[in-house]
């Protein structure tokens, strides 16, 4: 078990190194840098001034040297300064992280709490009207882009409540808090819950057809015990893996949702930073998101090991 965790941690380091190289190169392949954008938008034309900005930011250095500067700074705890605000990147990101983290956690929570039980119900009542209804719902959840769903929810709110949930650092009532975070979280989590539901359903159907379920019935166990204690425990294994993968997709949905609902989290901030070619900001944010995703996947694998003795004992 310990060797497994150590091996996984090493693998994490390799993954993060890969991510850092890819994001570093991608940013520089995309045409234009901060100097170009400043000059385009401000209409400045003095090439000497532009060259000075480029030199000040170190953008004229060879790529390996730029990369080494970034990573070297990271190890010293120095994330650099934002090109746009000229404040330390850490100071810019830090206050936004809890906002996005809360939204993401709530979205994930919703998708599990809705997805798993509905998947089980759908499987247990296979081919009933309820099953068909849930399958249609989940299919629409998978096919509906989250920005569109977000806009629909906004329009719905405006139509029925005359207002939309507005972000507030310290909401006054529970309902204000709920509207502020829960509605956007539901919009992001809908896709994941649909996916988790479909997966739970198919996994559950497969497990319910297996021999050991028949054995459990042959012992005289109640249908509820067979379904929840014997079958669900097995059916949930592939779902756990998917939840790990879904956290990565969640960020995609968050970018859109934070924009639509005007929430000042990191996801929306990232888009802004990309637009300005704010290299230190983008690089560090993407790496940060990668760390979160990789860590969640490690946790998911550890949970898997706890649940499945076949993996626990094979180590």
């Amino acid at each position, binding site marked *: 078990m310990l060797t497994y965790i150590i091996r996984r941690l090493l693998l994490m380091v390799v993954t993060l190194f890969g991510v850092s190289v890819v994001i570093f190169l991608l940013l520089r392949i995309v045409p234009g840098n901060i100097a170009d954008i400043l000059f385009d938008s401000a209409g400045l034309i003095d090439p000497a001034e532009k060259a000075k900005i480029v030199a000040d930011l170190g953008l004229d250095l060879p790529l390996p040297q730029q990369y080494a500067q970034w990573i070297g700074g990271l190890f010293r705890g120095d994330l650099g300064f934002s090109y746009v605000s000229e404040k330390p990147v850490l100071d810019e990101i830090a206050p936004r992280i809890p906002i996005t983290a809360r939204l993401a956690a709530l979205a994930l929570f919703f998708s599990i709490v809705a997805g798993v039980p509905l998947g089980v119900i759908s499987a247990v009542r296979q081919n009933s009207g309820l099953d068909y209804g849930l399958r249609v719902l989940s299919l629409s959840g998978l096919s509906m882009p989250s920005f569109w769903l977000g806009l629909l929810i906004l329009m719905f709110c405006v139509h029925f409540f005359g207002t939309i949930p507005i972000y507030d650092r310290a909401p006054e009532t529970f309902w204000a808090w709920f509207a502020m975070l829960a509605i956007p979280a539901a919009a992001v989590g809908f896709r994941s819950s649909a996916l988790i539901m479909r997966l739970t359903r198919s996994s559950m159907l497969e497990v319910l057809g*297996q*021999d*050991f379920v*028949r*054995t*459990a*019935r*042959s*012992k*005289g*166990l*109640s249908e509820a015990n067979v379904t929840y204690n*014997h079958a669900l*425990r*097995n059916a949930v294994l592939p779902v756990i893996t998917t939840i790990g993968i879904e956290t990565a997709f969640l960020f995609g949905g968050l970018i859109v949702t934070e924009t639509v609902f005007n929430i000042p989290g990191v996801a929306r901030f990232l888009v802004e930073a990309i637009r300005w070619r704010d290299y230190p900001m983008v690089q560090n944010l993407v790496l940060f998101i990668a760390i979160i995703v990789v860590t969640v996947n490690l946790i998911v694998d550890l949970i898997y090991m706890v*649940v*499945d*003795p*076949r993996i626990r*004992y094979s180590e």
Partner: protein
Amino acid sequence: MAPVLEVSGLSTVFHTRRGLVRAVQDVSFSVNAGETLAIVGESGCGKTITALSLMRLIPMPPGEITSGSVKLDGQDLLKVDEATMRTLRGSKIAMIFQEPMTALNPLLTVGKQIAEMVMLHDKASSQVARKRAVEMLHHVRIPEPERRAREYPHQMSGGMRQRAMIAMALACRPKVLVADEPTTALDVTIQAQILDLIGDLQSEFGTAVVLITHDLGVVAETAQRVVVMYAGRKVEEAPVGEIFARPMHPYLRGLLNSIPHVNSARGVEVDEPVRLQEISGIVPALNDLPPGCAFSPRCSMSEERCTRERPPFELKADDHYAACWRA
């Protein structure tokens, strides 16, 4: 002595898109306490469905038990409600399955899977149930039962899992044990051990055993009475000595001829597992049975009447029944 288990006129069908599949038709038999009844026949002839019908474990839909009765100590299992049936499953009638590798839940320890049932039926505390589980594992001759009880199925060999299944099935001392090809998936040496084990426990507890197999060697070694099935129906039934001495149905004769070592009754040597697939032709589709004798397309003795009229299952000699126009 009144039989513990009395099955009569049992018919089970499946409603499928390809039509009505008559998996079991009009099957009757009875078993006394401490005795073994063997049901033999080729793969697909309805043995497992018969067994599952006794336990009322047929998936419905698509399955349906259309008629018959299954009397356990006089109580008709097909008439009781589902809640009552659950109290009987595992406690009065238990089953072991063909595939020991998949029949146990991979996420629960073997001890827990046995104890769970003891707690349910005997209202035992979890400590008592655990102790009983260990006792049962000891009873089925699993070494170090305390340790094994804490192990998961994947840590055990196929033979040991089948022992654990037997321990589970007999933990509540059922009156009837339905064993569906309990040794088919195992090595030959293990097969003999498992059969011996079932036999020993059967005489110790006085359990009536319905042993399903397609291995005539196993039948000769273990059973008192034999039912031969073909295409969902009984085609022959007699005490085991009769069956081997005077097989009547051409199907059974075909089966016996395909075994190298059968000379006379009971003296069967089981050097290797004997499979029954060696009669030419295939079992007819159960949703499209021929109008006369179901065996007629494969029967070398078939005559005109055989394809027209189904032969009745009737007494042909003393306690020896068969369904064949020419027997």
